[in-house]
C-alpha cells in the first residue's frame, strides 16, 4: 500500500517526446486509469513508474521515497501486461510463484500463497499446465495471479484486456474491479478503451500527446469535459459537435446553430457572461442529452425542437436516432417504442444544462 507522486516528468526517446511534463498524485488505495489514444504516452508513463524505462527529467515517488534510480525489483510493484507475458517454459504454478522464488521466499510459503491465489482466481485445476495449454482468459487470470501473489504496494496494468474477446473482457473487467474492492491496493491501469476507464476508475487521467488533458472522477470528465478532445473521447456513441455562434437577446445567452433560424436558449450562467454575441462555438450534445419530449412542459434549461429522424439504430433497450439540427447532425437517445421508422418527424427535448459549449477556435470548454 503506497501513494505515488509524479512531478515534472519528462521522457524522451531521442528527439521524440513521449511524456512531456506530467504532474500527478495518486492516493493510497486509489484506482487510477490512464486513458488516451494510442501514442499519447500512457504506456510509457506506466513503464517509468515500473522502472522499466528511465526518465529524462522529474521525479517519481512511491510511498514517499524517490525511486528514479531504483531497479524495478526494488520498487515493490507488480505489473500485468497486454500480452500476459507468461513464461512459456514454466507451469502455471511456477509462473505464479516465479517472483516469490526470485525473492528467495521459503518453498512452503510459496506453495501456500500460490494455492491461495489460485483458489481466489479459480485456476487451481490449471496449476500443472503450461501457458500454451490455456485459453486467453485463463492466461490473463494467471497473469493477474502472478501479480497479486506478491502482495505488492502498487499494481500496474498495461492494457490487460485488449487481447480478449468482448464477452470475456466484460467479465474480466468485473473481476478486476472486485479485486480492487477486496484488496484495496493502489492500482494504475492503462487502457485506450473509454468504457474500461469509466467503469473501473476512481479517477481518470486522460492523456494526449504526452500531457494530461484532464483528470478527475469519471463523472467529472464525462459531464464537464474541458475540451472537445475529452468530450469526444469519452462516451459511446460519441458526442455530436454542432457549429454555431453565441446570441444575446435581452441579456439571455443562446446558441444559434448554423443553418437554423431560432437560437437555443442557454441556462443562465452556462457560459461566462463575458462571452460576446457572435463568438463562434461548438455545441456538444451527447445522445442522452436529447430525448423525446413528453406531454408535461419543458424542464428548465431544456429546449424543444421538431426534428425528422434520418437514421435509427436500435440496441434493444434504447434506440439511437440521428436527426438534423441546422446544418449538422446530432443523435438522440430514445426509448425503444418512441419512433417507428426513419423519416418520422417527432418533437425532441434537448437538455442544455448538460450540453457542453466549446470555443470553436481553441476547442476548450467555455
Amino acid at each position, binding site marked *: 500500500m503506497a501513494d505515488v507522486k509524479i512531478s515534472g516528468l519528462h521522457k524522451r526517446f531521442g528527439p521524440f517526446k513521449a511524456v512531456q511534463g506530467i504532474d500527478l498524485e495518486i492516493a493510497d488505495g486509489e484506482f487510477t486509469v490512464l486513458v488516451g489514444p494510442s501514442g499519447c504516452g500512457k504506456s510509457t508513463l506506466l513503464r517509468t513508474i515500473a*522502472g522499466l524505462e528511465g526518465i529524462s527529467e522529474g521525479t517519481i515517488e512511491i510511498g514517499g521515497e524517490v525511486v528514479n534510480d531504483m*531497479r*524495478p525489483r526494488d520498487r515493490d510493484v507488480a*505489473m500485468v*501486461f497486454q500480452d500476459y507475458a507468461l513464461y*512459456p517454459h514454466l507451469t502455471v504454478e511456477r509462473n505464479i510463484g516465479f517472483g*516469490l522464488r526470485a525473492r528467495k521466499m521459503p518453498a512452503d510459503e510459496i506453495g501456500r500463497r500460490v494455492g491461495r491465489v489460485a483458489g481466489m482466481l479459480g485456476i487451481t485445476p490449471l496449476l500443472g499446465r503450461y501457458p*500454451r495449454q490455456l485459453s486467453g482468459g485463463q492466461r490473463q487470470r494467471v497473469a493477474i495471479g502472478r501479480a497479486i501473489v506478491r502482495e505488492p504496494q502498487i499494481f500496474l496494468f498495461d492494457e490487460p484486456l485488449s487481447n480478449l474477446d468482448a464477452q470475456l473482457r466484460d467479465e474480466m473487467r468485473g473481476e478486476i474491479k472486485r479485486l480492487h474492492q477486496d484488496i484495496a491496493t493502489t492500482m494504475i491501469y492503462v487502457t485506450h478503451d473509454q468504457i474500461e476507464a469509466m467503469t473501473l476508475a476512481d479517477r481518470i487521467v486522460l492523456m494526449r500527446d504526452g500531457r494530461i488533458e484532464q483528470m478527475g472522477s469519471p463523472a467529472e470528465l464525462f459531464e464537464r469535459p474541458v475540451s472537445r478532445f475529452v468530450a469526444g473521447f469519452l462516451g459511446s456513441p460519441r458526442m455530436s459537435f454542432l457549429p454555431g455562434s453565441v446570441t444575446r437577446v435581452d441579456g439571455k445567452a443562446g446558441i444559434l446553430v448554423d443553418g437554423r433560424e431560432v437560437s437555443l436558449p442557454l441556462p443562465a450562467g452556462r457560459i461566462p457572461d463575458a462571452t460576446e454575441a457572435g463568438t463562434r462555438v461548438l455545441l456538444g450534445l451527447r445522445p442522452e442529452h436529447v430525448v423525446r419530449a413528453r406531454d408535461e412542459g419543458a424542464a428548465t434549461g431544456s429546449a424543444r425542437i421538431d426534428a425528422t429522424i434520418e437514421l435509427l439504430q436500435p440496441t434493444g433497450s434504447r434506440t439511437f436516432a440521428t436527426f438534423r439540427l441546422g446544418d449538422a447532425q446530432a443523435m438522440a437517445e430514445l426509448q425503444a417504442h418512441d419512433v417507428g421508422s426513419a423519416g418520422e418527424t417527432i418533437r425532441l427535448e434537448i437538455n442544455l444544462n448538460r450540453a457542453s459549449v466549446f470555443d470553436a477556435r481553441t476547442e476548450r470548454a467555455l
Partner: protein
Amino acid sequence: MTQTPATRPGIRHRRRRRPSVGRFVFLGLFMFFVLAPIYWMFVTSIKPSDDYLAIPPVWFPAEPTTVHYTAALFAYRGLQGIVNSLVVSLAATVLSVAVGTAMAYSLARFNTGGKHLSFWVLSQRFLPPIAVVLPIFLIYRSVGLHDTRLGLIIAYTVFTLPVSVWMMLAYFRSMPRSMEDAALVDGCTQWQAFWQVAVPLAAPGIVAAAVFAFIACWTEFFFALVLTSRTAFTLPTVFRAFLGFQGAQYGEASALAIVSLAPSIALGVLAQRHLVRGLTLGAVRG
C-alpha cells in the same frame, strides 16, 4: 443401393492417396540423390583397391575388406584427427555460442555500441581467412599455441563468433520483450531475467547457432592446415594425406569419411529434437 456406401469410401480413399504417390516419387528421387554418394562411399571403403575404378563398376565387392578402415584410422592417424576435431569443434561451439548469446542480448536489449557495433562484429567476416592466418601463425608460434588444441579452439571461437552473434541478435530482436520485463518487475535482476527467462526462450535459436558453429568448425580446413602439424591436426587435414603424388587412397578416404559421418548424424538428430521443441514452445501468444 447397397453398393453406394461400399464404393464411396473407396473413392474418397483413392482421392486422398493420389497426391501422396507423387510425393513419394519425389521423395524417393531426393533420397536417391542424397544417399547414392554415401552408398558409393561405403562400398568404396570396403572394396579391394583394384575395384575402385573398375569398368564396369563394382556395385558391391565380392570380397569386402576392412583393411582401409584400419589404415585410415591408425596408420594415417584418422582416429586422432576425429578426436581432435570433436574436442576442438565442441569447445569452440560452446564458447562461440555462449559468448555470442550474451553479446547478442546486450546488443538487442541495451543497444550496446549504438547502431554500428553489431555491424562491426559482422564485418570481421569480410576479411579473407588467408589475410589473417599468417599473422596468427606467427603469434601462435611465439606464444606456444601452435599445434595445440587450445590454439585452434581460440581461432575457431573468434572465427565463428560473428555468425553466432548475428543469429542470436536476430532471435532476440524477434522475441517479445514483455516476458523479461515481467521478470524484472517480478523481482529478478537483469542477469536473472537473462538467464532464467531470455535464455530458455531463445533455446531454439541457441541450438541453431550451435549447429552452424559446429559445422563451420568441423569442416574447417585452412586454419587447421596452417596452425597445426603433428599433434592437434583435425579430421579435414587427415584427408589431405590420402591425395598423394602416386594416386589417391580412395578406400582410406571413404572409410574415414564414413566414420566421420557418425558425429554429424548424432548432432543432427539431437539438434532436430531441440529445434522442434523450441518451435512449439514459442507458440504461446495469441
